């Protein structure tokens, strides 16, 4: 309802107020903000600028609270628009700049370009044409790689205007033509009537160069654009006015002053102050030319009044100029006012220029500081990364080295194990040999002893078969006794065979004994070796035996190298549920805790633990050492 054009302005205002009351009761959610935007738009449409501003500020507040960047940006845009419309250029500049910063952070180049365009317009309005030119070029830079035709058109068209102001007519023409090129690509809606705008601008450019004929041609082609009046009545009015003025200059007064009045009527209805002022000045000039001083003064006065009432200071000047022209009597008074306003305008321009650049400078400084911070952070990150990388390198190299060492160790152990296996095998051979000898001996015993005796007994009993006398019976008893002895002998041999196992009982024991024997010739200390015969070595895992053997080797290596012992006691003992190996010496000893786990000790530990056993070390400097290994069985 509030947006309905057909309803009276008063009614619409009431509806809008009601809408605001409803909206403000809602929580600060996205819907509430959307509705506020709608309300703001209503106010803008109804030209209720103060309410528009109030709503926009409310939106800024809400958006900040809700951390809603998109709404915040939009609200800033609304506020900026408000200040532009109110001609309060420094505030507009500030909000526009806020907006630009946010868009830069969001890397939204198109919107940054839009902000830059607004800035350029503000700069232009304040007469800062050089600054304006710079801004437009920055904007074009932002638009690089972007297919935004509209923005590009605006930029070129605006450059045309700026160069026209700077009297760079050739450049101005060049950029207007570029603008026309873009329009001719037909990527922009015709409704905006951009072609007519630029054609009109070109006309003005030629008028500035006093080439009114060419100017008129451009104005005529501008007015020939389709639907110009319906789409953009303000531009239509402007072009009409320009045609009239060009014709006036060329002395072609056929349609005058109707053309001026037509333009003024449209401008009046649209309330375009600038246009109204211009139309009045043109009319004043026309009537002055026609010597109708009264009408000339009237229109000049109209222009002056409208400009004054609307605070269009800049437009007061041409009005004053016209007044002094048409009213020579008051010329002095007008001139004094003219120069006063002109001076203050120039001062204001300088001030605003300074203000603009100050706003930018402060921000730039902020940006610089931020850059510096970012730079510092970057340096920190690089250093950190460097350190981490270095750390990783060191770690990798170390682990690699450790792995290599481990592999080497493993290989060595493998080799040692193989050697021991080999030793066991040769030992096995020796044992086999001994066993063979033993077998031979037993065979011999059987053969020569038992068989012989049995043979003898059988033979004798055979003889006695023939006689049954007393003597023979006695002899037979003798031979039966003999058979008993043979039994006994067989039992003995059988026992021998049985005990052969234990006699050659285990090659491990043999191996260890051989090792100890060998050590005896190398080691300066006296070695006392005890092997508990109760240990059933056959029942023990080969790996465990190899480990015991290696431990012995390792221990003797240490003893030979460092201990300077007089006595070494090596004892294998059978405990309740384990086998214990003790290696005790009365040498120099060592501090087990201080001495960083010697490779020998750690090797021994690894070996016994790998077989599921434990190792304890007891040693003190000067008091020898006792290594105890316990293997559960």
């Amino acid at each position, binding site marked *: 309802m509030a947006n309905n054009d057909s309803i009276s302005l008063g009614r619409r205002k009431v509806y809008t107020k009601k809408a605001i009351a409803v909206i403000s009761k809602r929580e600060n959610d996205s819907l509430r903000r959307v509705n506020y935007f709608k309300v703001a738009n209503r106010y803008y449409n109804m030209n209720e600028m103060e309410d528009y501003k109030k709503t926009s500020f409310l939106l800024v507040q809400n958006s900040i609270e809700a951390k809603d960047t998109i709404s915040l940006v939009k609200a800033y845009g609304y506020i900026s628009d408000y200040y532009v419309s109110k001609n309060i250029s420094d505030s507009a500049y500030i909000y526009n700049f806020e907006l630009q910063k946010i868009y830069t952070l969001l890397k939204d180049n198109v919107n940054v370009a839009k902000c830059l365009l607004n800035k350029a317009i503000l700069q232009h309005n304040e007469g800062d044409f050089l600054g304006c030119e710079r801004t437009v070029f920055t904007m074009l830079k932002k638009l690089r790689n972007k297919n935004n035709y509209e923005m590009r058109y605006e930029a070129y068209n605006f450059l045309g205007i700026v160069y026209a102001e700077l009297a760079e007519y050739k450049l101005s023409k060049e950029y207007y033509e570029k603008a026309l090129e873009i329009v001719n690509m037909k990527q922009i809606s015709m409704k905006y009537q951009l072609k007519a705008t630029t054609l009109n601008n070109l006309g003005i450019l030629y008028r500035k160069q006093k080439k009114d004929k060419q100017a008129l041609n451009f104005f005529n082609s501008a007015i020939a654009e389709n639907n110009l009046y319906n789409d953009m009545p303000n531009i239509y009015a402007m072009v009409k006015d320009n045609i009239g003025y060009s014709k006036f200059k060329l002395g072609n007064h056929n349609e005058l002053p109707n053309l001026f009045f037509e333009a003024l009527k449209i401008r009046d209805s649209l309330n375009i102050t600038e246009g109204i002022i211009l139309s009045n000045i043109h009319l004043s000039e026309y009537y002055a030319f026609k010597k109708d001083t009264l009408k000339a003064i009237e229109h000049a006065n109209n222009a002056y009044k409208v400009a004054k009432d609307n605070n269009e200071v800049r437009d007061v000047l041409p009005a004053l100029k016209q007044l002094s022209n048409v009213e020579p009597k008051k010329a002095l008074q007008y001139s004094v006012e003219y120069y006063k306003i002109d001076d203050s305008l120039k001062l204001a321009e300088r001030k605003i220029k300074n203000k603009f650049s100050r706003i930018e400078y402060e921000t730039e400084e902020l940006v610089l500081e931020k850059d510096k911070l970012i730079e510092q952070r970057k340096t920190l990150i690089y250093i950190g990364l460097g350190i981490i990388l270095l750390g990783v390198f060191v770690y990798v190299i170390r682990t690699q080295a450790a792995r290599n060492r481990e592999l080497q160790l493993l290989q060595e152990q493998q080799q040692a194990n193989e050697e021991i296996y080999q030793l066991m095998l040769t030992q096995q051979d020796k044992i086999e040999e001994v066993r063979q000898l033993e077998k031979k001996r037993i065979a011999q015993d059987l053969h*020569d002893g038992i068989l012989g005796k049995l043979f003898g007994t059988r033979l*004798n009993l055979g003889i006695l078969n023939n006689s049954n006398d007393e003597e023979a019976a006695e002899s037979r008893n003798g031979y039966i006794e003999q058979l008993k002895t043979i039994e006994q002998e067989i039992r003995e041999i059988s026992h021998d065979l049985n005990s052969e196992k234990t006699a050659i009982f285990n090659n491990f024991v043999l191996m260890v004994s051989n090792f100890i024997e060998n050590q005896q010739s190398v080691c300066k200390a006296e070695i006392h070796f005890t092997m508990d015969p109760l240990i059933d070595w056959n029942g023990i895992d080969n790996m465990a035996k190899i480990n015991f053997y290696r431990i012995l080797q390792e221990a003797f290596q240490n003893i030979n190298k460092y201990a300077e012992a007089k006595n070494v006691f090596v004892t294998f003992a059978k405990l309740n549920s384990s086998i214990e190996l003790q290696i005790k010496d009365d040498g120099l000893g060592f501090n087990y805790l201080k001495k960083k786990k010697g490779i020998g000790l750690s090797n021994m530990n690894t070996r016994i633990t790998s077989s599921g056993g434990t190792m304890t070390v007891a040693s003190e400097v000067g008091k020898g050492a006792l290594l105890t290994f316990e293997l559960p069985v």
Partner: protein
Amino acid sequence: MKQIIQLLMVDDHPFILQAYKNTLNGFKKEEYEIVTTDAVSGETGYNAIANSLVDFDVAFLDISIPSYPDKDIESGVDLALLLREKMPNCKIFLLTMHTEKLKFNYFFDTIKPEGLIVKNDLTFEELIFAFEKVLSGENYLSETVIKMIDNQNQ
């Protein structure tokens, strides 16, 4: 007048020597008087042969006897060789527990014993039979030996 037979017996089991004696005790008492000489080892056997005042007519030699390295006597075979050298007329019985073919061949080649007996074949009767056979100038091979030779010839 009974014929005197000088008999040498070598076996490391006195027991067996006794058995031989007992067996031959009853051998044709009217015709022969058997005079025995015992030895229980390579050494005693060697001495018995080397120092004998008489030539032995018959010898019972066990092959497996304790050796006598001084005189290179390893077994009964070496004693047999000595006998062949010293008393070529002596009829030799080789007695053994072994039953290996190769050994028999070796005996035949070197000693050509008049009697070759595997002890396992021997009984009281068989011993008397063998003794008689050899005395009469024939050769005697015990049952196992004959089988072995048969097998070899097949």
